[in-house]
């Protein structure tokens, strides 16, 4: 076990739905106390199901999971007492005010009566909703709802925080504010954070370690830097002057490395020892013209591509198309 108090240990976790595929297919993971763990994957990869199991909302089909030292199946109430959760849908009551929500949540979480108001005021202030606390949630923007959701998750001072796609649909400013708050929680309060996301940048900026999940399995795990270093070599992306030039430029660039599947440009992962200048010289020497040429360091998307053969964006689109087909069918 990582730690008696704040860690998460998952071993061979499987969750099957009665009439569906294995949403989670034998995952193992370990989150250290005070760590921000980013769980990255496209829609339908199994991120939310994992969170539901770890937060005791769903029993696993097999495998074990311990949160804060407690088994999620055998000690559900103990797990719930030490975690804070903000699920993907910020399920708020539009008729209640922000302060009503905090008061209700504080009571249900067993916060002492004399502490409820103080705690609510403190959290409203912290998430920037002090002025909006007495307004009904129906008048809140998406960002305000997310911030209130975070405040609700923190009302009882949890040691472990689960955030399921907390910034989906948020504007960049709200996203950055939420990132800062999550980072502060880890830095000042030593809260362990399990964060699911489909945003590469979010995992990259925020997470100490990242687990990449696809079709219910963890396909890669490590610090963002280590994962990118595994890919090692940068890629070169060229934008042709005309679309019909793409095949010719692709063929030309293939001599510098292996081609990458992208929809917008022509790209190759450079072979060891080659740089951008080698390509510029070759392009010049052969009179091949491009509008733009860019050297990119490996990203988490490259890691995802290398591990699954698809880009994260492409996998998300595939999952959405599949869901749409299931709805129509």
């Amino acid at each position: 076990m990582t730690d008696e108090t704040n860690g998460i240990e998952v071993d061979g976790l499987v969750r099957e739905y009665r009439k569906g595929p294995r949403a989670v297919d034998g995952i193992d993971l370990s989150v250290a106390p005070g760590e921000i763990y980013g769980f990255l994957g496209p829609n339908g990869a199994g991120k939310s199901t994992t969170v539901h199991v770890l937060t005791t909302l769903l029993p696993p089909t097999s495998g074990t999971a311990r949160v804060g030292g407690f088994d999620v199946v055998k000690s559900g109430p103990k797990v719930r007492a030490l975690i804070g959760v903000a699920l993907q849908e910020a399920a708020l009551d539009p008729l209640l005010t922000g302060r009503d929500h905090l008061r209700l949540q504080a009571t249900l979480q067993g916060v002492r009566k004399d502490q409820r108001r103080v705690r609510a005021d403190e959290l409203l202030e912290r998430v920037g909703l002090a002025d909006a606390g007495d307004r009904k949630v129906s008048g809140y923007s998406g960002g305000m709802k997310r911030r209130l959701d975070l405040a609700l998750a923190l009302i009882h001072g949890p040691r472990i925080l689960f955030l399921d796609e907390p910034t989906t649909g948020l504007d960049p400013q709200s996203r950055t504010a939420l990132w800062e708050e999550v980072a502060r929680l880890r830095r000042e309060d030593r809260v362990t954070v399990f964060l699911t996301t489909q945003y590469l940048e979010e995992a990259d900026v925020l997470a100490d370690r990242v687990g990449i999940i696809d079709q219910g399995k963890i396909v890669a795990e490590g610090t963002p830097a280590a994962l990118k270093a595994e890919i090692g070599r940068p890629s070169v992306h060229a934008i042709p002057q005309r679309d019909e030039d793409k095949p010719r430029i692709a063929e030309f660039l293939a001599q510098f490395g292996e081609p990458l599947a992208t929809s917008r440009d022509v790209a190759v992962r450079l072979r060891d020892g080659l740089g951008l200048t080698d390509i510029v010289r070759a392009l010049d020497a052969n009179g091949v013209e491009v509008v733009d040429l860019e050297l990119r360091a490996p990203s988490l998307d490259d890691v995802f591509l290398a591990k699954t053969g698809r880009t994260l964006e492409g996998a998300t689109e595939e999952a959405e198309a599949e869901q749409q087909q299931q709805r129509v069918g």
Partner: protein
Amino acid sequence: MSNSWPQVTAIARRSVVRTARQPASFIPPLIFPIALMAVNAGGLRSSTNLPGFPTDSFLAFALAVPFIQGALFSTMNAGTELARDIQTGFVNRLALTALRDWALLTGQLAGVVALGMIQVLFYIAVGVSAGVEIRSGFAGVLVLLVYGAIVSLSFGALGSFLAYRTGSGEMIQALFPVLFVFLFISSMNTPRNLIGVEWFRIAATLNPVSYMIECVRSLIITGWDPQALLLGFGFVIIIGVVSLTLAARALRSRMTRT
């Protein structure tokens, strides 16, 4: 084991606050039953001339109906609200707290009961100001309040059961007319012994809603009728016990937390 009553009162408070902030959910249960009673009292006044009709005032006779009709509205509202909580994920939010299952059900029903008692007081106030004399006196009004609370609890539990079971507000709304059929094939407009159509009299006799109406009616127009009270309380308690049991079971399978 920590004290769960603060949880119960917090959930009940939310239920009352939500209702208070949605006039559309508490005004119809107050107004429609009274409006229907006024229409019936106007159109069926001559029924009081039938030999054996128990009172001279049809309004006094009909005042019992809003009690049950209002409870049906409350059932639907409670069920629909709960189904919405399930659909939006609010029940998951509650499931992630230290809230106990029974405290959630009790809190929600406490809110329904509080609103049900407000309805009863409103119907009594309207009836008394329209000239109805409550024959059982002040003690009878207190019994009416208690009965209103039990009816709201029983029907509220039925609404909660449907919500936990189906998770669909639309499904609950669709059941509303079915419950109303029970009201219309009861003794709501005519005493059972004066119903001329045989099948209707049999149906009204088999229908528990008849005994619930007659229980309330006896306190208003007769005074203290032990048989009517026993049957009325008996049926509503049976409905309540069955509904609460079903609701508690459905809640357990809905809140699948470990």
